[in-house]
């Protein structure tokens, strides 16, 4: 890619939109994952008794659904990113590449 087309791409409003949207979305989702996971680790480290609280009359504790929630949230966050990237970002990228 020569310098001119590089500058042209950088000025392209589609490119600007792609970078702004994808960066902020990617870092926001990363932050959410960090908060969920380290929230869980802090509960394990400082409030193990909370995780040991029983749900209703059985032996199942609240820690079980919380642990499962962290596992499922990892998948769901990934799925949210991928579906957004497939629908939005790929369209923008195609427009940028065709314009270049």
């Amino acid at each position, binding site marked *: *890619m020569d310098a001119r087309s*590089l500058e042209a*791409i*950088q000025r392209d409003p589609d*490119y600007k939109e*792609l*970078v702004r949207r*994808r960066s902020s979305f*990617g*870092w926001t*989702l*990363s932050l959410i*994952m*960090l908060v*969920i*996971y*380290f929230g*869980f*680790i*802090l509960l*394990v*480290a*400082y409030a*193990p*008794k909370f*995780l*040991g609280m*029983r749900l209703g009359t*059985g*032996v*199942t*504790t609240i*820690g*079980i659904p919380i*642990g*499962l929630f*962290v*596992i*499922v949230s*990892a*998948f769901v*966050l*990934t*799925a949210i*990113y*991928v579906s957004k*990237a*497939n629908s939005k970002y*790929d369209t923008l*990228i195609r427009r*940028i*590449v065709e314009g*270049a």
Partner: protein
Amino acid sequence: MRKLSCIFVTAIFASLPSLAFAAGAIDGGTKQAVNWVAIGMFVAFVALTLGITYWAAKQTASAADFYSAGGGITGFQNGLAIAGDYMSAASFLGISGLVYTSGYDGLIYSVGWLVGWPIVTFLIAEQLRNLGKFTFADVTSFRLGQTEIRILAACGSLVTVAFYLIAQMVGAGKLIQLLFGLDYWMAVVLVGGLMMIYVTFGGMKATTWVQIIKAVLLLMGATFMAGAVLYKFGFSPEALFAKATEVHPKHTAIMEPGSLISNPLSAISLGLALMFGTAGLPHILMRFFTVKDAQAARKSVLYATGFIGYFYILTFIIGFGAIVLVSTDAAFLDGSILEKTKSGIAAIQGGSNMAAIHLANAVGGNIFLGFISAVAFATILAVVSGLALAGASSISHDIYAMVIKNGKANEQDEIRVSKIATLFLGVLAIILGIIFENQNVAFMVGLAFAIAASCNFPVLVTSIFWKGLTTRGALIGGFLGLISAVVGVILSPAVWEATLGNPKGSAPVPLDNPALFSIAIAFAGIWLFSVLDRSARARADRDGFDAQYVRCQTGIGASGATTH
């Protein structure tokens, strides 16, 4: 080269009859009796994978074929292969064994192994595919000094691969000794030998298909086991937990975090290593070059995260199933230990890592036991193959082709170097596996993750996103991270006290995993020495960022798939 490999293959097959004979000779000794069903299924797996290797070898001609299967793997296939790379025997047997002994603590570990994947999706996978070709050093050295950064990346890759490989080899030897009744050294030689055949002949294509087959078998086996356990309890987890807390000596304590995580800082440090280490493992990062574009790379992580998360939920059920069905059945327990400790959990034959294996026998009889044993062996084979390929690529692509030959290596020479490097790594892995037979290697996987998180990951993420990064900053920061991770592990209780035999409480570093400070040191070093860098090289490094960023975002100029 071809001739050398042929001699090697002949040697492996020539040793098979004596192998079977030797195994027969120790029947009824201290080792597990020879399990013919397991051996039969394993031989079938090996025959199938060798057939695939033969097919892959015919299609592997160029460097792109060898390193990245020509970019022709689909997102779904790559997702399965990543899952196959990641679901090692350590996570299958280790986590179900941990759930068996400590219950909830096992879940804490599985969560940690999984949460790195979203980060890989959001920040690494597509960027890597758009910027790189064969190894992650292609990305880190994109605009920085080739020589220095390639050497750093090769050190980070090879050290990570070496520790991971030792842990897998020792685990393989022990496991196969128990499962098949083979001698330890034979098991290690068998694993190392098959690994060399897959990688040298079939390259990435064969390695990928070995991973895929193994991932499918492992997911099927684990699904059946967990399903059989739940079936016995009317598909009510509560009924399963109720019975488990009744028979486990720790009773309801297995339903909450236990003694495993005693020091909060240790817990956080381990969490950091697991989360960011995943995004720095060379054999995982390499998988993103096997798909055709960034979109496929992104999809493959989604599939992988789904498979791995599902698998960890299964291991949790399997662990609880083993508490109920294995620890209460005298057939799976060691009588003398049972007499001493009065605990079925402690008395399990072969140690807690065998919980899933015994459970297979309990729910599916001898045939299913053979199937799960063969799958466990296949799992180790697949993981070590992926590791060997990543290590060999680093030697041939980063060191030989880019540093020694200055990027002007003849493609066939480069492939030849890669094959020789694979043989070298295979022999090294066998020797190290034998040396470390009686050492505690449990800390080594944690160490591999800590190094990946402290050296590979910080350099990778700053090279992609931070314009201010310079060659000097990456080099110094990366090596600081690498060294502080290794030193931190040596001075930790796990090595200083448990392995080196110093008195308890004397470890200079109280954390079992160094990631908490070694990641911070790496990022601080990268930042400081980049900011202070006023050299001409630094100006070129920063000037190169814009073009790199455009390619990283749009994929314009990214290496495409080769067509067959």
